[in-house]
């Protein structure tokens, strides 16, 4: 076979359109053995979605329904004056204009995060009272007969704003004399989270090499393609509330609606129908949900609908990231890391949403990454500013951790003249379970394996040689590595309590076996694209031998499901899937007792396989699952103490987190003339433990990597000094299109998690956590600079090439302690 490199025309290496088109995979419909665990079974969710028969919130219409439109603050900070709705009320179709005076709430929008125990959690009323602190803050709501009338009404409401000084950036917010947002948070400080290993300063004082870098992890807007929306109805006669909402956490919403509205939780039903993406932005409860319910109540039970516009989505739905990090890495001259110090200013925005300071708290926990670093110090100051609140955005604290440590390790490698792959090898954690510097117990791992596999697949040595040749021809070609570990499977409830999160971390499932042999699974998870109905059905097929197609999965409706925590933090399979596994095992064990009784065999002497119990050593003596199901239903011959029916529920609280890991490699070429970065190859080697559906796992990696490439190259939420968001539309905020994202090569190693019986870890966020560092390391390598902050938009890169900003450096100075440079 010809050498593909040799076949390329001179000077054309690393060019071409976004890599090679991969072979079309054969459509797999399960293995000959079925559609159980480990097969790329096609999704059962797709049929309605490809036909246009999905049911999203805005598709729902109730009889007599009114439309809501919010009046929002156009200024970032002001004392709220009079609200004049006279003109709005005259508009045909406008039924009501409601402000904070008209709607009663028992409390504010809840925050469930207090990492330090003394975090300032200023009350945020669903509709502003007295003061507004961000552009987009809801001030009043208009109810009208049509969308148009509601919008016209909202535009006609006149509000007086007495403007106050504004502060936007976290560094400005903590300066002496900065405008203050909340009386209860002097210095704009929400909380200061601190952690250090014993005698940290002494331990790193003698380090031979110190690398310091300021790293900005920019503010991002999540942009689920379906904006939020609600349909709400309050029944005055009974006090019942029905709320359709586009959310990842319907049960949280149910609990908090009952508290904030002041009604019995048993009367509240929350339904998350089809949800068009979340990425953490719908892991929250929002002012609009409470206002919609209160508005229906105020309007004598008329149902109301609110559909978020994209502009509202980019102003009033949470943002992500916005960390300013100062990092110091201490090492020996041989590149062995001895310590890491990380100080972070985390911009909370104007108020805390559900998880606020917990997001950077996760950064603290994962700061040391895949490396055996004994000495670690981290301080995170969470700061209020006149901006949209930040909260969980895909990865939620872990991308910030991976990015900074992976950047610093690359800078260290560069300074010491050690290959980036080699410096990583010199520092990997190798014995598992491993206690990290922050006390987390990494469950299992093999970081050399994913690194080695990635280097083998990209042909690392040859790639470096080709890079050298390309450079000799004046090409700016870079190779970037990112070796990551993340914490997911959130979370052991004792740990969430200990770190100040006001919610537990367990998950629920119910398995209901119908007399005809069909199965309903009710799960507490709340998917919005992850394919739980498919994966959960695969687990049923493997564990009970009941065919995939005979399983229905119900989620997202609090009237049907046992309490569930929802879908976030790459937790659904590791926690919710395990809850399902335990319910299936309970069904199986009950079935075993019934078979043993009917066949008069000791239960221990029965084996289960292919959907059938049989006596050990005599396969002909047994009962099929279908026969057992019939016996459990007819209930005429059950063993003593065994109840009729086959239905089991489990609430599973995980004993530990799970820790997926991997190595991503990104090859880039930078256009000298324009500064444009072209990704010529992207390879992800991930280890998420045991895989239920490889096709779905690949899809999660593709999407996560694409989102992370978006952060690395294109996306940035920008405010001006008056607190106006300059990127509040998809024209101004660029999420990547098909034209910007290359094919993503995926590969896996499989190191089972000992945390759960399925051996699974989680994959939803891995791509987002790993990829920014791979891309930025690659571009820094291409340009020969130590560091660049994201996004690497063409102008920023071009300015570096032109020498207008950071000067390219061939080798940075060795900053040393004690002994001077060698």
């Amino acid at each position, binding site marked *: 076979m010809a050498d593909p490199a040799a076949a390329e025309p001179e000077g054309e290496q690393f060019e071409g359109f976004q890599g090679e088109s991969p072979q079309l995979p054969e459509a797999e419909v399960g293995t000959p053995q079925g559609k159980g665990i480990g097969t790329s079974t096609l999704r059962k969710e797709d049929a309605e*979605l*490809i036909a246009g028969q999905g049911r999203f919130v805005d598709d729902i219409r109730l009889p007599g329904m009114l439309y809501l439109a919010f009046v929002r603050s156009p200024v970032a900070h002001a004392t709220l004056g009079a609200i004049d709705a006279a003109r709005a009320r005259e508009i045909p179709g406008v039924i009501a204009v409601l402000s904070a005076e008209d709607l009663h709430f028992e409390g504010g929008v809840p925050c469930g995060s207090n990492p330090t125990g003394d975090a300032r959690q200023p009350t945020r009323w669903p509709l502003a009272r007295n003061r507004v602190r961000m552009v987009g803050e809801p001030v009043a709501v208009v109810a009208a007969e049509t969308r148009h009338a509601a919008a016209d009404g909202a535009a006609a409401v006149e509000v007086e704003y007495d403007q106050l000084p504004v502060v936007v950036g976290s560094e400005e917010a903590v300066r002496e004399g900065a405008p203050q947002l909340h009386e209860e948070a002097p210095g704009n400080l929400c909380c200061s989270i601190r952690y250090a290993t014993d005698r940290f300063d002494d331990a790193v004082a003698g380090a031979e090499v110190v690398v310091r870098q300021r790293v900005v992890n920019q503010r991002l807007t999540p942009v689920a*393609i379906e904006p939020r929306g609600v349909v709400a109805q309050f029944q005055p006669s009974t006090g019942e509330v029905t709320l359709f909402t586009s959310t990842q956490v319907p049960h949280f919403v149910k609990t908090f609606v009952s508290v904030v509205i002041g009604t019995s939780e048993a009367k509240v039903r929350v339904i998350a129908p089809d949800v068009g993406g979340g990425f953490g932005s719908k892991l929250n409860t929002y002012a609009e949900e409470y206002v919609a319910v209160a508005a229906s109540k105020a309007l004598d039970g008329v149902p109301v609908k609110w559909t978020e516009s994209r502009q509202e989505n980019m102003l009033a739905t949470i943002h992500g990231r916005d960390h300013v990090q100062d990092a110091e890495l201490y090492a020996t001259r041989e590149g062995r890391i001895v310590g890491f110090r990380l100080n972070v200013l985390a911009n909370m925005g104007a108020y805390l949403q559900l998880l606020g300071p917990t997001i950077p708290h996760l950064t603290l926990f994962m700061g040391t990454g895949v490396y055996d670093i004994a000495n670690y110090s981290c301080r995170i100051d969470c700061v209020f500013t006149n901006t949209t609140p930040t909260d969980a955005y895909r990865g939620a604290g872990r991308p910030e951790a991976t990015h900074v440590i992976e950047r610093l390790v690359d800078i260290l490698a560069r300074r010491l003249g050690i290959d980036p792959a080699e410096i990583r090898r010199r520092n990997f954690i190798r014995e598992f379970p491993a206690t990290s510097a922050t006390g987390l117990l990494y469950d299992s791992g093999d970081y050399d394996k994913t690194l080695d596999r990635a280097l083998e697949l990209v042909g690392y040595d040859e790639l470096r040689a080709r890079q050298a040749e390309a450079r000799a021809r004046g090409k700016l070609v870079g190779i970037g590595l990112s070796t990551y570990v993340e914490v997911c499977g959130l979370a052991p409830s004792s740990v969430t309590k200990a770190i100040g999160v006001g919610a537990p971390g367990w998950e629920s499932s119910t398995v209901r076996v119908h007399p005809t042999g069909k199965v309903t699974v009710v799960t507490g998870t709340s998917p919005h694209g992850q394919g739980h109905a498919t994966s959960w059905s695969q687990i049923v097929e493997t564990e009970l031998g009941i065919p995939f197609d005979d399983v229905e999965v119900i989620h997202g409706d609090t009237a049907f499901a046992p309490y569930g925590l929802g879908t976030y933090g790459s937790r659904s399979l590791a926690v919710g899937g395990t809850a399902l596994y335990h319910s299936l095992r309970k069904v199986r064990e009950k079935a075993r007792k019934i078979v043993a009784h009917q066949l008069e065999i000791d239960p221990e002497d029965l084996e289960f396989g292919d959907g059938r119990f049989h006596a050990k050593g005599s396969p002909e003596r047994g009962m099929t699952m279908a026969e057992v199901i019939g016996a459990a239903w007819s209930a005429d011959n059950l063993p003593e103490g065994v109840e009729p029916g086959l239905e089991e529920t489990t609430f599973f609280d995980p004993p530990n987190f799970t820790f997926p890991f991997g190595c991503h490699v990104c090859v880039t070429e930078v256009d000298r003339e324009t500064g444009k970065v072209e990704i010529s190859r992207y390879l992800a080697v991930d280890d998420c433990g045991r895989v239920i559906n490889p096709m779905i796992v690949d899809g999660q990696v593709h999407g996560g990597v694409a989102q992370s490439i978006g952060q690395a190259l294109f996306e940035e939420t920008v405010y001006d000094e008056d607190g106006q968001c300059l990127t509040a539309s998809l024209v101004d905020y660029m999420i990547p299109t098909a034209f910007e994202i290359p094919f993503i090569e995926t590969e896996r190693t499989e190191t089972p998690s000992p945390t759960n019986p399925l051996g699974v870890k989680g994959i939803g966020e891995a791509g987002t956590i790993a990829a920014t560092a791979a891309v930025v390391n690659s571009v820094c390598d291409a340009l020969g600079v130590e560091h660049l902050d994201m996004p690497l938009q063409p102008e920023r890169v071009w300015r570096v090439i032109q020498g207008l900003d950071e000067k390219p450096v061939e080798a940075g100075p060795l900053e040393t302690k004690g002994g001077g440079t060698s």
Partner: protein
Amino acid sequence: MRERVSVTVNGRSYEREVEPRLLLVHLLRDELGLTGTHVGCDTSTCGACTVRIDGDTVKSCTVLALQVEGCEVQTIEGLAQNGELHPLQRAFHEQHALQCGYCTPGMIMAATSVLERHPDPTDEQIRKGLEGNLCRCTGYHNIVLAVKAAARG
């Protein structure tokens, strides 16, 4: 204030009195109950509302309902014929080219015109052709493969 519009959607004739400012996408969703066509932005950027008008793919948020007077509109609901999925619908399923599924109807409608222009499209033609449709879930990887698979039948 209201004006009459007559339009054929997925082969069926409709007549409605509408506000002149009503967008086609809201005519389809709110007046005709065809909720498969979605809205994802205010700026005609995302393409979730893509439909076909007299054979052209159009973002239905850029068109007033009154502008389709006498036109034939096709939406995602009209793509399958006689209970048989369109090759693109089948390919999106078989290649796992959708996750949350919100962009999918618009993406598939846009892809129909990519395939008409390029019956055997290159990766670049597919990516260029879908540049006006945003997906936040899939990274486009499997969408490109699905369009390719549909082209090959």
